C-alpha cells in the first residue's frame, strides 16, 4: 500500500493540476493491476463498506496510545479528521511490510466475518506495521470515509494519458454500476467496450455559471435555446432491455426511490435515455426543494409521501433513441426529437418536457429570468443550439444563469470549529434575526468568507466567547453578516419557523451595527413572498 499512500500524499499536498495528473498517470502505468482497479474505484466514490465502527476504533487507538479516551476525543476536533487523529496518536510501528492496496482491502473486508476480538487484533497488528501516512489511508478505508481531492475529470484524463485511450470514451466506461468485484482492469479500461451493462448512464454534460455581465457576450440570441433551471435532482432516466434505471448526477442509482418513474416504460420505447430534472410536482409546477428532500433520504417510500410529494422528470435532453447514442447530434435536433416523443404523452405521465423558452433578444431573456421565482425555477439554462452533449464540464456551450440569491442581514451568535482543511478555524456559524430585544437563531452557514476573513473572525471568537456548550461557543452578539440563500420554506423543526436553502455568508457587514440587522418579521415576509 506504500505506492498508493505515496500517490495519496502527493495528490493531497500539491495544488498543481499538472502534477496531480502526471502522478496518477504514472501510477496507472506501473502499479499492480488490481491496485489500479481499486484506485479507480476509490477515486470514483466506490468505497468498501465500513468494516468497524468508529467508536471501537477510537477506543482501541486510545488504549494502544496509552492515553485516556477523553484526551483522544479532545484531540480529534483539533486535527479535524478521525483517521488522521488515530494515525498520529499511535506509537511508531515496530515492523514494516509492503503489501498491496488490494491485499489490505481484502483483509479489511474480511473483518466483517470475524468476531470483535479477532477484528481488534487484526487492526492493532495492521497499525503496528504502518507509518503515519499509510495508517491514515488505511483508517479511511476502514471507516468507509475515503475521499480524495481529485475530480472525476482529472482522473479520467490521467487514465487517458496512461492508456492512450480517448478521454470521453473512458469517462463513459467508468459510469454506472460496477465495482472491483464485478469487473477487472482489463474489462473496464483495456478491452473493447462490450456495453453489457444495460444500466450504464452517460457522463453528464455540465454547465458553467454566467458571470455578472450576463449573456450579452454569447453572440446572437438565435444561436441559443433557453429553459428554466429547475431546483431538483439532475438525473438520467434509462430504458433498456425492458427495464428502467434512474441515475442521479452524483452517480447514485435511485430507481427504487422514485417508483412513480417506472410508468415511463408504459409510454416510452426501449433504448431511450433522457436527461432531466427530477422534481416533486403539484400537478402544474414543481414543489419547493424541501418536498423533494423528504423523498431523497428514503429507499422505500410510504404511501402518504408518494401522494404528498409525487415526482416527475422534467426532461430537457434526449441522449439515446432506439438504442442509438445521440450525443454528437446538435442540441436543437435532440431537443426536437425529445419534444416529438414527449408530445404524445398523457397529462398523468411521470415525465414531461421542460419547455423551451422563446426569446428574441437578450433583454427579453433577462426579463424572463426575473420571473423565475414565480415559475418555481432558480434561473435559466442557456444552451447552444448546435452543441453536442459534452462529457463533463466544458466551457462555451452550456450556461446557467441563476437568479441573484435572496439576502438578509443577520447577527452571529454561535461559532464552531471546522473540520479537515478548516480544522482550528472557526468556520461554522449560527445566525439570528432580531425579535424585539431577543435574537432568534434561524440558520447556520459555513462558507462564503475568504481564508483571511475566517482567520480574523477566529481570532475574534477566541477573545469574545461568552459560554461554551461542548464544541459550540456562544459569542458576543456584535457582528452582522449578509446571508445569501436560494430559497426559504416553512419549517416546524426550527425555532424561527423557517428553513433556508444553500445559506452562505455573502459579506461581513462591518458597517452595520446589530440593531440594524433584519428582524423575524422581515424573515416571515420573505417566507410569505417566496416560500
Amino acid at each position, binding site marked *: 500500500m506504500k505506492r498508493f499512500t505515496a500517490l495519496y500524499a502527493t495528490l*493531497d*499536498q*500539491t*495544488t*498543481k493540476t499538472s*502534477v496531480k495528473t502526471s502522478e496518477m498517470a504514472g501510477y496507472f502505468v506501473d502499479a499492480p493491476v488490481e491496485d489500479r482497479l481499486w484506485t479507480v474505484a476509490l477515486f470514483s466514490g466506490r468505497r468498501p463498506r465500513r468494516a468497524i465502527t468508529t467508536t471501537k476504533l477510537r477506543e482501541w487507538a486510545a488504549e494502544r*496510545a496509552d*492515553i*485516556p479516551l*477523553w*484526551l*483522544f476525543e*479532545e*484531540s480529534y476536533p*483539533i*486535527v*479535524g*479528521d478521525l483517521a*488522521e*487523529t488515530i494515525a*498520529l*496518536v499511535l506509537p511508531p510501528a515496530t515492523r514494516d511490510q509492503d503489501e498491496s492496496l488490494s491485499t489490505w482491502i481484502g483483509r479489511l473486508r474480511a473483518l466483517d466475518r470475524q468476531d470483535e476480538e479477532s477484528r481488534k487484533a487484526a487492526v492493532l497488528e495492521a497499525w503496528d506495521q504502518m507509518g503515519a501516512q499509510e495508517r*491514515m489511508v488505511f483508517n479511511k478505508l476502514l471507516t468507509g470515509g475515503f475521499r480524495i481531492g481529485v475530480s472525476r475529470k482529472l482522473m479520467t484524463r490521467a487514465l487517458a494519458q496512461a492508456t492512450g485511450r480517448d478521454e470521453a470514451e473512458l469517462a463513459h466506461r467508468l459510469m454506472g454500476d460496477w465495482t472491483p468485484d464485478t469487473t477487472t482492469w482489463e474489462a473496464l479500461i483495456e478491452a473493447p467496450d462490450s456495453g453489457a451493462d444495460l444500466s450504464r448512464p452517460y457522463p453528464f454534460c455540465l454547465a458553467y455559471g454566467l458571470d455578472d455581465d450576463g449573456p450579452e457576450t454569447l453572440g446572437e440570441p438565435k444561436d441559443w435555446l433557453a429553459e428554466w433551471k429547475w431546483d431538483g435532482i439532475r438525473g438520467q432516466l434509462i430504458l433498456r432491455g425492458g427495464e428502467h434505471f434512474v441515475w442521479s448526477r452524483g452517480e447514485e442509482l435511485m430507481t427504487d426511490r422514485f417508483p412513480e418513474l417506472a410508468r415511463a416504460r408504459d409510454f416510452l420505447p426501449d433504448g431511450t435515455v433522457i436527461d432531466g430534472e427530477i422534481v416533486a410536482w403539484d400537478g402544474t409546477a414543481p414543489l419547493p426543494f424541501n418536498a423533494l428532500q423528504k423523498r431523497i433520504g428514503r429507499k422505500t417510500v410510504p404511501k402518504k409521501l408518494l401522494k404528498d410529494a409525487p415526482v416527475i422528470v422534467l426532461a430537457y435532453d434526449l441522449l439515446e433513441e432506439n438504442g442509438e447514442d445521440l450525443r454528437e447530434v446538435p442540441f436543437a435536433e435532440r431537443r426536437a426529437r425529445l419534444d416529438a416523443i414527449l408530445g404524445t404523452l398523457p397529462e398523468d405521465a411521470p415525465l414531461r418536457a421542460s419547455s423551451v423558452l422563446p426569446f428574441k433578444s437578450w433583454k427579453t431573456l433577462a426579463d424572463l429570468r426575473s420571473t423565475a421565482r414565480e415559475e418555481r425555477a432558480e434561473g435559466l439554462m442557456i444552451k447552444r443550439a448546435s452543441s453536442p452533449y459534452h462529457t463533463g464540464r466544458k466551457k462555451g456551450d452550456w450556461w446557467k444563469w441563476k437568479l441573484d440569491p435572496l439576502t438578509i442581514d443577520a447577527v452571529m451568535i454561535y461559532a464552531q470549529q471546522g*473540520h*479537515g*482543511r*478548516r*480544522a*482550528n*478555524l472557526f468556520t461554522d456559524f449560527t445566525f439570528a434575526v432580531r425579535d424585539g430585544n431577543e435574537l432568534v437563531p434561524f440558520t447556520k452557514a459555513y462558507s462564503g468568507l475568504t*481564508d483571511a476573513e475566517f*482567520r480574523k473572525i*477566529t*481570532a475574534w471568537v*477566541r477573545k469574545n466567547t461568552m459560554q461554551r456548550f461542548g464544541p459550540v461557543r456562544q459569542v458576543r452578539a456584535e457582528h452582522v453578516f449578509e446571508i445569501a440563500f436560494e430559497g426559504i420554506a416553512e419549517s416546524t423543526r426550527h425555532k424561527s419557523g423557517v428553513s433556508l436553502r444553500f445559506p452562505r455568508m455573502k459579506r461581513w457587514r462591518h458597517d452595520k451595527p446589530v440593531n440594524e440587522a433584519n428582524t423575524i418579521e422581515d424573515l416571515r415576509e420573505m417566507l410569505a413572498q417566496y416560500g
Partner: protein
Amino acid sequence: MVLEFKPHGIYCPAGDFFIDPWKPVDRALITHGHADHARPGHQRYLSTVSAAPVMRHRLGEITLETVHYGEAKQIGDATVSFHPAGHVPGSAQIRVEVKGEVWVVSGDYKTEPDRLSEPFEPVRCHSFISECTFGLPVFTWAQEDIVAKEINGWWAANAAKGMFSLLGAYSLGKAQRVLSLLDPSIGPILTHGAVENTNAVLRAQGLALPDTLHVTPDLDPKAHPGAMVLAPPGALGSTWARRFRPNSTGFASGWMRLRGVRRRRAVDRGFVMSDHADWPGLNAAIRETNAENIYVTHGYTDIFARWLKESGLNTEIIPTEFTGETLDAATDDGDAA
C-alpha cells in the same frame, strides 16, 4: 509566592522584576529574543550572553545586562539563574529562588537537541511555569536527521528538475536550524533579507552556518538554477517569491504535522519541524523538574492542564500574552512555532 501573575506579566516581588513582561516595566528578565517574549519599552533588560545580540538587533538601543548560563545573580531577595531551553540560540529557562523555594519559568523550550541551540537542561524546582504550544498527543516530532534527509531529498529532486526550492521558515531560529541541516553540495542557498539579517547576527556571535547569498533586487535568479530559497513564511506567496520560477514550495513548522494545516497553507511539501517540545518532550520535561505545581501558559492549556491534573500534579492555567496559543496567529505572523 515566589512569582505572581500580574497584568504586566510574571512578577517576582522579592526581587521586584518581571519575566518576559508584555507591558513596559522597570526591570525585565528575558528568556529569549522572539517578539512575544522580548518586547520594547522596558527600562532595564537582563538576558543570557548569547541571546543579547539578537535582542539588540530587534530592540535597538536598550539597557541590557547579560549573564552566562548557570551563573547565579542576586536581585533583591531573589537568586536568579538562566538555563538552556533548547528553543533557539541563547534561549533560557529562568530559575528564581527565594528563601529556599525554587520556581522556573520555561519560556519556550524544546527537549530534543539541534545543531545550534544550547541543549535543553532540566532544572529541578517546586513550581514550573511551562508553555504547552504542542500539548496534545498527536504532536510528536521525528529526529532531526530524518527531517534533514526529507528536506535535502526534496531539494535535490527539485534541483534535478531545474526547479527552485522555496522554503518558508521563521527568520529567527527556524531558518537557521534549517540552514544547519542543508547539504550545500546540492546547490546554492539564497536568503530573504529578514532571514539574512538574523544570519548575520548569529554568525557574528560565532555560530557556524553554511554560506548563503542574500537576494537583492539586482540578483539574477537564472544564475542560480536549482537553488534553495529560504524566506519567512509570509514571503512565499508574495511578489518577492515570483522571480523564482519554476518552483516547489515547502514550509517547516510543527503545525505541518496536521494535514488540515498543510492543506490550508497550500504548499507542495510540509516538513514537521518545531522549536517547541512535542508531547513526549513536554511530559518528560515536566517530570524531570520534579515540581509539585505546574502553571501552563500558552498552547492547548485546557487540555494539557486536565491531563497533568489527572496525572496527579497541581496544575493551573495562567493566561498570558505569549503567542503560539492560536494556530493561525502562530503560523501567520508569529515566530512562535
